[in-house]
């Protein structure tokens, strides 16, 4: 098989993965989950997250409300959740996260103070929905 054909095959498969994934991730959970996002409040204080460990239900959109209570800016970043945004001191940022699948962990951290500012979102089935 020529390189070009192989490349086309790979791209085709990836396109299928996007379509299938969009169905599984975005359409199906949306059909069975209720529409109101699950709210989570996080405060950054002394370059740490309060709370640092957050348990959330699966298949439900999340709203992360992150307040920076420090006197310095922090960049709230999560590789898995595809978030990276600077939050100025004293400000609050909101992030809507699409429904996540059960039994997964998503780390987040403060880019400006990664030694102390570390946390994670844990998706668990038995979290009581608010």
């Amino acid at each position, binding site marked *: 098989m020529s390189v070009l054909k192989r490349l086309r095959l790979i791209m085709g498969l990836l396109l299928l*993965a996007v379509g299938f*994934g969009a169905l599984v*991730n975005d359409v199906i959970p949306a059909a069975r989950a209720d529409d109101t996002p699950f709210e989570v409040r996080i405060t950054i204080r002394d370059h740490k997250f309060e709370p640092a460990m957050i348990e959330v239900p699966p298949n439900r959109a999340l709203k992360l409300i992150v307040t920076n209570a420090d006197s310095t800016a922090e960049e709230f970043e999560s590789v898995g959740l*595809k978030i*990276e945004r600077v939050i100025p*001191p004293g400000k609050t940022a909101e992030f809507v996260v699409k429904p996540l699948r059960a039994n997964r962990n998503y780390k987040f951290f403060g880019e400006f*103070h990664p030694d102390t500012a570390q946390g994670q979102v844990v998706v668990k089935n038995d979290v009581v929905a608010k």
Partner: protein
Amino acid sequence: MSQVAVMVFREALEIVVVAALLLAATRGVPGRWLWAALGAGAGILGASIIAFFAEQLADAMAGSGQDIFQAFILLATAGLVAWTIAWMRSHGREIATQARDTGRRIAAGTAPRYLMATAIGVSILRDGTELAVFLVGAGVAGQQSMASVIAGFAIGIAGGVAVGILLYRGVMAASLGRVFNAVAALLAFLGAGLASQAIGILCGAGWLPSGLDPVWDTEDFLSQGSDLGRFLHTLLGYMSQPSATQLLTYGATLALVLWLGFRRLPPPAISR
């Protein structure tokens, strides 16, 4: 101080990798060092202005302004990289063969220096803005003395520039005819990484569907936040938890830039 140095080094590295590879790709183009410096200067100026107004800008755009800004800059950088490669592929030969004829050389090779300068400028705009916000925080909040912030900054920049020189020298050490090929391949991966990061930000903000997410999860194996993970992310676009849309973007960009850099050219027109 060490924390400032580490942070500055990380941000500088992202800029320096782009700059070093583009400078290597545009070898032979007259005035490229001057234009690189002009691009860098404009980027630093722009980043300082944006950092100063960062708070107001973020508020004005309800917090998601940064996402648009980041995605736009990343995509612009990827586009400029691709454009430089495409240009150098079709005109590189002219520049090399006419190297002795300064007048014609300038006529043949003015475009890529603007592309390269703009690419360097916008990367500084992105990483520099972040850095400026961080440094203002570190200095003004009185966490650390001004002297230690400045020392950390100097160490970080020096480290970043040192890596850039190593990278540039390393690539240039490849045999003469192969320099462009090596750089074009590296820049294709870099461009793919930039584009997929931009698309990731747009997916995260809910503007694009992310598809299957994540397709794989190697965060525990090699964290994208670790030093090696960051370096591989910057240079090759390594992702520990990529979505299908990001992978698709990566593949498409990689294929496009590789094609631009290695496409077969029509035989050169006979010059008088």
